[in-house]
């Protein structure tokens, strides 16, 4: 198929997936912000959410203060924020429109209708009235577009490039959701050096407890709610209970969301899909990209959570995000319209 067409399909899928995961991330942040805590802590929660999306500077440029309504506004409806749900759904729809001939009518109409309905939802104040319902809506539109794709599209290259976009974006986004807790702790650099005042709570459990002392007085139940919220944000709370039949511990949450190949939003599952799809669309240039993806997949498949997190969850996730980004660049070079700037 045309490289340009493949490019639009790939980004269409990435943007709808990104919108979904942004909704998930906002949802978890909103939920945890309702826990009993100081205003300072609540603000840190929102800052973390922006930090993980690499949006703190652009937020600060338009909003001098930090508050839940302002962050929600910025992350949902701000057309100048290219990562807002509004911008993502618009970009998904514009990409779909550019190649609507390569989509089934059902897929195109789903994207188009999502975009039209979004404007109605925002105009009618659903976000302010019931943010949770709005996030549900975003998630379901994304579910629908994925389902319609699987349910109606011929399984040819068009289909595969859509899938490639979906899973590459999901690998990236799940890693960011997992990492959001780290950003809540403030300056990332000092944390990486093991100098922070607060522990990275993901490493509190068992063997991975290496990065300094546990902060005294941090109520343990907050931890529980935090990780429960993370699990819920990726629809994994019930799955966790079924798989582990145990209390919620950060290490197991990490294991579930990083290594479990049968957990559909885990890093392992996402990278697996990327590898399989790359194999189906391979051409005579794509060997190196496939090799890198395969290597990453193998590490997730055969790795042990304790080893992966030996240097801390944040270090692992940072490395993972870099490699996913590298694979994305490779895909663009090998098949699509080469990226001018890294996305």
């Amino acid at each position, binding site marked *: 198929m*045309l*490289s340009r067409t493949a490019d639009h399909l790939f980004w269409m899928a990435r943007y709808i997936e990104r919108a979904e995961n942004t909704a998930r991330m906002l949802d978890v942040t909103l939920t945890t912000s309702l826990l009993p805590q100081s205003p300072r802590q609540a603000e840190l929660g929102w800052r973390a959410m922006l930090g993980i999306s690499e949006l703190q500077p652009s937020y600060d440029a338009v909003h001098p203060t930090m508050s839940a309504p302002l962050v929600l506004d910025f992350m949902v409806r701000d057309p100048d924020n290219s990562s807002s749900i509004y911008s993502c759904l618009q970009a998904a729809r*514009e990409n779909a429109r550019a190649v*609507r001939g*390569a989509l089934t009518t059902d897929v195109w109409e789903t994207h*188009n*209708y999502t975009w*039209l309905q979004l404007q109605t939802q925002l105009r009618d104040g659903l976000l302010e009235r019931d943010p949770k319902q709005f996030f549900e809506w975003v998630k379901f539109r994304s579910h629908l577009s994925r389902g319609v794709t699987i349910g109606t599209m011929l399984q040819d290259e068009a289909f595969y490039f859509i899938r490639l976009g979906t899973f590459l974006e999901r690998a990236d986004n799940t890693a960011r959701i997992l990492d959001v807790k780290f950003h809540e702790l403030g300056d990332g650099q000092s944390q990486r050096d093991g100098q922070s005042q607060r522990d990275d709570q993901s490493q509190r459990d068992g063997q991975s407890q290496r990065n300094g002392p546990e902060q005294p007085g941090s109520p343990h139940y907050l931890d529980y709610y935090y990780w429960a919220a993370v699990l819920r944000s990726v629809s994994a709370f019930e799955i966790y209970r079924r798989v582990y039949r145990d209390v919620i511990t950060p290490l197991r949450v990490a294991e579930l969301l990083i290594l479990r190949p049968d957990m559909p939003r885990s890093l392992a599952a996402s990278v697996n899909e990327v590898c399989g799809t790359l194999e189906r669309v391979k051409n005579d240039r794509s060997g190196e990209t496939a090799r890198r993806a395969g290597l990453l997949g193998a590490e997730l498949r055969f790795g042990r959570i304790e080893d992966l997190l030996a240097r801390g969850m944040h270090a692992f996730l940072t490395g993972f995000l870099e490699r996913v980004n590298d694979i994305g660049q490779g895909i663009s070079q090998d098949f*699509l319209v080469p990226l001018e700037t890294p996305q």
Partner: protein
Amino acid sequence: MVESSIFNEMYVNQGGVRSHYGSFEGWLAGQSDDLMRLKRTEADQVFRRVGITFAVYGDGAGMERLIPFDVIPRIIPQPEWRLLETGLRQRVRALNCFLHDVYHDQEFLRAGKLPIDQVLQNSQYRPEMRGIDVASDIYAHIAGIDIVRAGAGDYYVLEDNLRVPSGVSYMLENRRMMMRLFPELFVRNRVAPVEHYPDLLLENLRSVAPQGVDDPTVVLLTPGMYNSAYFEHTFLAQQMGIELVEGKDLFVQDGAVFMRTTRGPRRVDVIYRRIDDDFLDPTVFRADSTLGVAGLLDVYRSGRVTLANAIGTGIADDKSIYPYVPDMIAFYLGEKPLLANVPTYCCREPDDLQYTLEHLPELVVKEVHNAGGYGMLVGPASTRGEIEEFRDRLLARPDNYIAQPTLALSTCPTYVEAGIAPRHIDLRPFVLSGTQITMVPGGLTRVALREGSLVVNSSQGGGTKDTWVLEE
């Protein structure tokens, strides 16, 4: 114009219903206003969701609008359609003969049928095409011929669109919409189907592939998603199962055209192009064009790729050439024209200019190269100021204009704010020429929604209707 002198497609003057509308009118009378309002809202919602929109130039990039759709169909009885169809085939055959002639032996010109300067000095004439042989000698593969009905109900050809005529997707979507909204109507009326148009088009495009290509790769070349007809480009490419390409997707190498695919370059044999000649090849035509493909003309001239329509068809649909089409039919086919032209004054002729200047308030004056309802004056609908302003433009460049009497276009009952009222309509049938001529019954009916307006172009606030040819 006196209202009663206007031909109404549904009613005869004293209030009776024309027989071919009998069944429909009876059905309509039985529908409640509420139901019809509901159906019209539904149609709007579906068009919006499906994204059947067009961009309006000057409205800001990316502005999309719906073309208003009217649920009362325009119905053509079978005998009238047979006459139209025969006349259209004849006309398009003659136009293709003319195009071949004009770029080869120029017999028509040498026979003195048309002033030679009027062709050779015309900006639509492409000297690059002189002596070039195109597949099957066909130039206008897709022709959209605008037909109007005036006076007591006579059909006239208003203009020939031979460059990149658009609108066929609306014809198809309108039918789909009517069948969705009112399936029972299609049980009660034997409406000739049109949905196979994309099949005919694909067959047509494949039939004109370069010699020696057995299984041609056909693509549709679009200017991109901000073009007003982008919906149609995607629609047709999808319906035919061919790639929708932009100029940047194509490149020329080793004397052939290729497209960039995820598996490397792939040879292209037939390009159904929906961009104007001027933008096709920046090395030959407009150098600032980013829509075209560098080197395309060379490949085309060597016969290794087919362009549909051919380069240079504009010379045959130029409004200053239009008055000579009946002569072309006599000259090339030895036949009597079956469809009449509208009387036309060529302002390049002093007598015609004189007449035009004296009768501006009654005439329609059009730019010879323009289309889409842009750059025209409708005398009876214009203020004195607008007429005077136009007079200056006309005097500055008389050869750029033609004038025609303001035709009392036929009307068809149409939903407007106050209920149902007659509105003026025209008809654009699509004629496909390849190794044979094919067409689907009917075409796109456009309707001028403003009361009294004669301008049906979608860019000027026109709407569309489903067009029924009734089978007997």
